[in-house]
């Protein structure tokens, strides 16, 4: 508290530790790895269709979480409303997809 005014730059650098490029590069490498696994699963052509689907969906969902959390700063503080906003969209989408698939397939 006492150095609140005297050392703004120190406060900044403390914050910058959190905002360093490393976690973004980690997020990038993770995205890259997940993408490569997905493409490799299909390109190899040796895994059966059902299992490939499962791999693909898992890789996609993981990559989306990685990107939302790190690149779109969702894991940072003060992101409650953004999460509500995007979650609302996702809920509507799931309702829509379930409705559409029910309508088409059953």
């Amino acid at each position: 508290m006492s150095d609140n005014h005297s050392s703004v730059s120190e406060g900044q650098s403390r914050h910058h530790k959190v905002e360093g490029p490393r976690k973004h590069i980690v997020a990038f490498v993770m995205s890259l790895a997940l993408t490569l696994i997905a493409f490799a699963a299909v390109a190899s052509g040796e895994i059966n269709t059902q299992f490939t689907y499962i791999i693909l969906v898992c890789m996609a969902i993981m990559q989306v979480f990685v990107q939302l959390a790190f690149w779109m700063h969702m894991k940072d503080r003060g992101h409650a409303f953004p999460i509500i906003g995007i979650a609302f969209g996702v809920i509507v989408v799931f309702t829509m997809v379930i409705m559409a698939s029910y309508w088409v397939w059953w």
Partner: protein
Amino acid sequence: MSAHQHAEGLMSHEPEKVTMEGRNKILGFWLFLGAETVLFGTLFSAFVALRHNVGDGPKASELFELPTVFAATMILLFSSLMSVFAVQAMHRHQVKAMIGWLVATVVLGLGFLGLEITEFTTYVSEGHKMNTSAFSSSFYTLVGFHGAHVAFGVLWITLLILQILKKGLTVVTAPKIYVSAIYWHFIDVVWVFIFTVVYLMGKVAA
């Protein structure tokens, strides 16, 4: 006590969150992205429902070429990384570096668009047109909508670069950069689902 409360404007390491207007802009943009999720979600559900209705046209597994899709995926992923670096440069107040990363973002975005245009032209020459089948219509609508978003992003970020050159990095221009980066990542997130659901799953379903 949060870093947002500092009144020193650009001295803040997060200039996009200094003003109430900036914070509201970011929140409003997230609500917009919620709506965008719905837009793409409905296009995806239409595509998933119609993807086997190929009529007389080519099937997905005959049409798609993994190397092209992989190249497009890599371009967009790198582009997304460039815009992460742009925001980080902005947080360090390195305007020149920020502009450099933004230019890289735009160039990669243009590369992606070029690849997509070539891809679509090839498909059309192979008899996969907008009106060939329910599959082709839903394919072009979904992937084309994503492409249109990339095109808009390229235009938007280009204009932002010009505005930064003219007005500099201020508490007014910073939120725009931040929000455009969020938009660009969102476009990449949508592409993750496109290459998974449209291309890879289409390639698997023989």
